């Protein structure tokens, strides 16, 4: 009984933590990705798996958020939905979401299809991503028109106006636009006007989109680890760091045939 307090004090003494230059939380989608990333992560990078957190359990959620809040920066390669959750739930920690597809691939296809003007629908907060995409588009002779909404109920007013002059409509990525009534409205508006709808994820094609863009998950994780390791060394991620390179475009062949849009042979 007398020895117990001494042991307790020794335990606390042994807890002195190693302090790194920058603490980076790297959030990946699942445990498998996190396991692969942990082996390559630099000191100071904590790798967390999003699928290990039941977001409806405040105890688990609290521990996860405490780990994020204790970081200097969060690098997320989880896709739009999880990244949106991270942005909503954390406070005061810079979050860098790796875009889960290569926008340049989409723009290369748009150029090959002869499109000159594409309406880009995005939620508030995607302005920097839109600016980056616009730069890539201009380099390919394409004009991107921003359709920025704060709530999905603004879509019926904003989208028809933009579609009067656009040859395609592109969802940058946000669960409010890629799921539920937001997506249902966009796909109906696009199909009614025979305008191709482009967006993140092959699953959108099965639900009526013309094109779905996906990343190569292994390449995206590798890229995210590199960005996190550099950030742990003190480098601040810039816009190009959150872009994914390479991936797959999935086309809706039925719509392509009906609308007479040629699908490049090198993609499916």
């Amino acid at each position, binding site marked *: 009984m*007398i020895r117990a307090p001494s042991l*307790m004090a020794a*335990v606390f*003494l042994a807890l*002195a933590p190693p302090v790194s230059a920058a603490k980076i939380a790297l959030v990946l989608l699942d445990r498998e990705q996190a396991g692969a990333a942990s082996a390559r992560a630099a000191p100071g990078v904590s790798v967390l798996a999003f699928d290990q957190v039941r977001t*409806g359990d*405040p105890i688990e959620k*609290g*521990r996860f958020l*405490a780990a994020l809040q204790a970081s200097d920066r969060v690098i997320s390669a989880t896709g739009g939905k999880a990244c949106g959750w991270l942005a909503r739930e954390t406070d005061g920690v810079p979050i860098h979401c790796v875009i889960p597809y290569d926008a340049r691939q989409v723009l290369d296809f748009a150029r090959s299809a002869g499109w000159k003007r594409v309406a880009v629908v995005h939620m508030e907060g995607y302005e920097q991503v839109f600016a980056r995409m616009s730069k890539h588009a201009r380099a390919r002779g394409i004009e991107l028109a921003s359709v920025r909404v704060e709530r999905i109920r603004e879509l019926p007013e904003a989208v028809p106006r933009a579609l009067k002059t656009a040859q395609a409509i592109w969802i940058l990525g946000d669960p409010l636009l890629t799921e539920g009534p937001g997506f249902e409205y966009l796909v109906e508006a696009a199909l009614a006007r025979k305008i191709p709808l482009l967006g993140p994820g092959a699953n959108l094609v099965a639900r009526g989109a013309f094109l779905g863009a996906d990343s190569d998950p292994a390449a995206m994780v590798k890229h995210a680890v590199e960005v996190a390791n550099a950030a742990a060394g003190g480098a601040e991620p810039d816009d190009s760091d959150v872009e994914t390179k390479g991936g797959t475009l999935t086309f809706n062949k039925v719509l392509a045939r009906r609308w007479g849009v040629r699908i490049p042979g090198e993609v499916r």
Partner: protein
Amino acid sequence: MAMRPARAYHGTIMTRLTRLLAAGLLLTASASPPASAKVAFTGYGNFVMPADSYFKVRGPAAVLGTTPQGNLISKGFRLDAVGLFATTKVSEDADFLMDLTFRNIGNTVGQTRIQYAYLDTALPWWELRAQLGRVNLPFNFYNSRRFYPFQRIEISAPIFVNAVLGLPIADAGAVVSRRFEAANGWGLDARAYAVNGYGSLGGSTTTLRSPSLPGGIALSGNLGSSNNNKDVAFGGQLAVSRAGEGDFGVSYYRGAWDRENRRVLQLAGAHMYWSPGDFDLLTEYLHIHATGDEGMQQSVRSTSWSTHGFFATASHPLFSARAKEVVGYARFENYHTGRASGGSGKEVLRSYTGGLHYPVNDAIAVKAEGVYLFYAIPTATQTIIIDGRLLQASVVITF
């Protein structure tokens, strides 16, 4: 006179412990980088609506106390609990966690509890982890992983372990644990703990439980803010588990509950949680053995008594509504308490529960439930019997 030296000794040790614990926490806090000061607050609310409650209560007025006798019929609304969880990282691999729960909420709050408050840290030896502070005891499965309404699909917890044993079993002390990983995500979790432990019923030094309502039959009030004797209670758990698939284990607790360290309470448990696909089954066995309890003597004709019993809860999705699964569940529990050597005079608790659970989204769940309860405990003159049914609905909100 025999108690005075024990109290004085206990007081000295507790003072030293408190000082060293405070010094230790200060040391940990000072070793932490400034970013660690950020605290994540989350929480929940559980709103319960008993739609139809009908219970027959019979027993001698002397032991029923303020509990009314006869047929009790009620309906209404009740904010069962609101809890706030505060979590912060105090070092690279150490968190401090706290739960502040409010219960019996009206214009004022009837009960404010710090359900747990502990430092959870990795230790530098043998991949051990430690929890220090007011910790949840790793006893069976329900206590630490199904206690909160957002962790379980049922509205009510199993009645015996919740109302008599008292959930959650949380006490001041320490838990040391280690997981031994095996193949395919399975592993063995070994946990050992030392806590102050259960003491005697308030106002008595020789009663652990007594057949009186309300409160006397429960052990839940016997966990105090400090130890009531010079020894700590200890125990442990061994469990084989794989996340989301299954958890099978045995648990043990032993501690003296009186000031002279002569009267002992032992708990033994076994649990099986199995979740193949959408099916989910949890069953827990509980054995309690207490010695020297004069409070239960009139009920079981002995100061040495034991409880045997179990509950089993099964659930499975029944159908989908608006792309969410409606899960149906059923639970049965059966507990008997009698003198340790056997014989007449038994406390009996049986209940049958069934219901539905519907997750509206990540943050809101709606539940509906029906419960049938039969409870009987003999007293010196007459048996207390509570027999009835309850239909209720609830909404659980997390944030």
